[in-house]
């Protein structure tokens, strides 16, 4: 997880609201890694995650004038990303989402010569096996540093649901990874 200076983010968000492109660029550079990895945990395909990352930031920019600075801008960004991921996985049959294969390392070119296979380890597989909402809660808490109240805001669920899903996630992970945890 990358440490991000919250005051700086707040400053950038103010500028982005005024459609300052330089600020948006910095904001993108700060959050691109975490948004990409968040999306990756739902679509498990590098180029899809890359496309959705782009879409997330574009949506964020296009709605920037409606940005409410009292809410966390970071949470809003994740909210967009999450909705895109969910919409994507609704469109795609479940089996094909779980293709842990990646053909495009150099993804800006359509026909890269470099072939590359990405394999998940047992830990990622376990996280991956969690039901969607449960995975979202766990991921936001574990990888993206959100507190429960922020997670509730991003996923539009109650604080109690966040807690329940988190307990469930921990129980499932513990069970699945038992052999690794002794």
């Amino acid at each position, binding site marked *: 997880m990358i440490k991000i200076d919250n005051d700086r983010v707040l400053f950038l968000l103010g500028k982005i609201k005024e459609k300052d492109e330089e600020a948006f660029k910095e904001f993108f550079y700060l959050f691109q890694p975490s948004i*990409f990895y968040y999306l990756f945990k739902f679509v498990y395909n590098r180029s899809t995650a890359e496309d959705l990352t782009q879409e997330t930031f574009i949506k964020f920019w*296009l709605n920037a004038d409606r940005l409410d600075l009292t809410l966390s801008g970071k949470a809003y960004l994740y909210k967009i990303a999450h909705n895109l991921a969910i919409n994507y996985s609704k469109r795609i049959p479940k089996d094909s989402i779980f293709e842990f294969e990646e053909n495009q390392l150099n993804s800006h*070119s*359509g026909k890269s*010569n470099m072939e590359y296979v990405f394999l998940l380890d047992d*830990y*990622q597989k376990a996280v991956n096996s969690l039901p969607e909402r449960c995975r979202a809660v766990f991921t936001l808490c574990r990888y993206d540093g959100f507190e429960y109240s922020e997670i509730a805001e991003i996923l539009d669920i109650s604080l109690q649901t966040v807690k329940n899903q988190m307990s469930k996630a*921990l129980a499932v992970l513990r069970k699945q990874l038992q052999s690794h945890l002794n």
Partner: protein
Amino acid sequence: MSKIIDSHFLIKIIKNEAAEEDKILFEKWLNESDENKEEFGTLVLLWKKVGDSKLPPLPDQFLQWEKIRAELAQNANPVKQEESSNDSPHLVKPEQKHFDLKQKEKREYAWVLKVAAVLIIFVSVPFLLFINKNQNLSKQIKPDVKSQSEIMYSVEAEKGVRKTILLPDESLVYLNVDSKLIYPEKFSDTNRIVELEGEAYFNVSHDASRPFKVICGNTVTVVKGTEFNIKSRNDEVEIILTKGSVETFKKDSNIGIQLKKGEVITFDERMGFSKPIKANINHYLAWRKGKFSFSHTSLENVMDEIGRYYNVDVVFRNPSERSKIITGVFDADSLEHIFSIIGLTLDVKIELNGSKVIVQ
């Protein structure tokens, strides 16, 4: 009053989000029993291992940002476009236009264009150049679905305007002021051909099976995937390579010159190609950073460059001033500042009068 020590509580401890009093409470709890220690140990291990798991490499941030930029430019409100292009001859700083840049200007008079497209792509000499190498000649001329699309786009960055173009193969082209790029709606399966007038920086997506060809002036530059700058002004073409490798040809010749990273080559109508030489990339790419970089440049060329950037006409009152020489790097955002420095250095007076610059 005892707080419940559950996994949520412990996670707060692990994430270092717990309040001081909770930390004290936690220490007490931890020391109560070995069972507690074990439970916490397992949770920490789980937390750590899950976090350490391998993730794929990140997409290139720079490239992705450029794609976002290009897409937002495409989404830009067309009404805004009208306004900005009808601007009075006041100074326009190209960098400020960013997302308002118009991307594609699809021309309506389709068949004139089709003829033009055929002329550009098939009749131009570079095509003949590659006939020998390419057995699929007939395939290219037939209106095959797989051949290069007949719909051509022509994107022009007027004086004072810069544009970013995302090509159909996801290559990016940064068009400098007063420049024009012609490219097809779709590239063929064997070739990617574009034509440039003026100056542009190319970031070509890698595709070994379809060489990317830039026709500029009397030159053809062939690449597979790389970054380079091409500039043609006043019958001179200048190619500088920043990444990868390119080969450049005179239009009617099939002897190419290979450029290496960091080298520049110039082509002159009379003299032909220069030898490739190692170059200061910053100098040639200053325009991408909103700077002018001049190295032993005549005042005439300097003013020409500035005139394109700010969309102003330059008038020399005394022709002998034209050949004075300047070296230096200037920020492109302050015209007055540039003029005052040049003025002091060369002992000339440069004045802005409406959309005219007068040198005396």
